[in-house]
């Protein structure tokens, strides 16, 4: 069963625009992570946000977390063609020691 659901499933934007994707989850979490997967590659860890944090930045990435709404958003600013990839949120639960559950992902296409 999937804990997280990303929205939208697919997103297409022009280079230079901002891309926003959302993740909703069902139960309380310890941490929420975002991963990127380029075509034919493994996942790459982008950023971690803990349940007691509300916002984190890493370069062009901005992640927010709203535990009252059980949702998170990933914003990529000034997108580049190289940002074309699938993005997954993953959550680890207080009740499931060391287990992370991935959502189905958002497919982002950045058009040059």
């Amino acid at each position, binding site marked *: 069963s*999937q804990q997280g659901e990303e929205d939208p499933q697919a997103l297409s934007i022009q280079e230079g625009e901002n891309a926003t994707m959302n993740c909703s989850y069902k139960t309380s979490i310890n941490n929420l992570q975002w*991963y990127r997967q380029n075509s*034919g590659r*493994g996942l790459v*860890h982008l950023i*971690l946000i803990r349940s007691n944090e509300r916002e984190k930045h890493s370069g062009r990435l901005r992640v927010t977390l709203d535990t009252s709404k059980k949702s998170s958003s990933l914003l990529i600013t000034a997108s580049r063609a190289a940002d074309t990839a699938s993005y997954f949120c993953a959550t680890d639960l207080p009740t499931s020691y*060391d287990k*992370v559950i*991935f959502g*189905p992902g958002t497919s982002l296409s950045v058009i040059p």
Partner: protein
Amino acid sequence: EAGVVQSPRYKIIEKKQPVAFWCNPISGHNTLYWYRQNLGQGPELLIRYENEEAVDDSQLPKDRFSAERLKGVDSTLKIQPAELGDSAVYLCASSRLGRAYEQYFGPGTRLTVT
């Protein structure tokens, strides 16, 4: 630092044949994960090892899947016999103990069962 290594990258087999995947995790990472990723979906955990012990194999179809992690380093995932529905990408990941929130993934093995 070398990343997670997996082989082979691609495998095409006929149904009912056996297949094996190999993974070498990042040095010092005691926890190793095997995931299956179907097209358009996120990875789903098959089995998690802490050192040589399988601590979570609840999602591993044990009638046909098996895994081992001898000496707590490399790991092998086997399917015997393969079915058409096993076609997927099999991903290996590793992390430091207690840091499941920061996993490092290999490139995966794309399995096609015909």
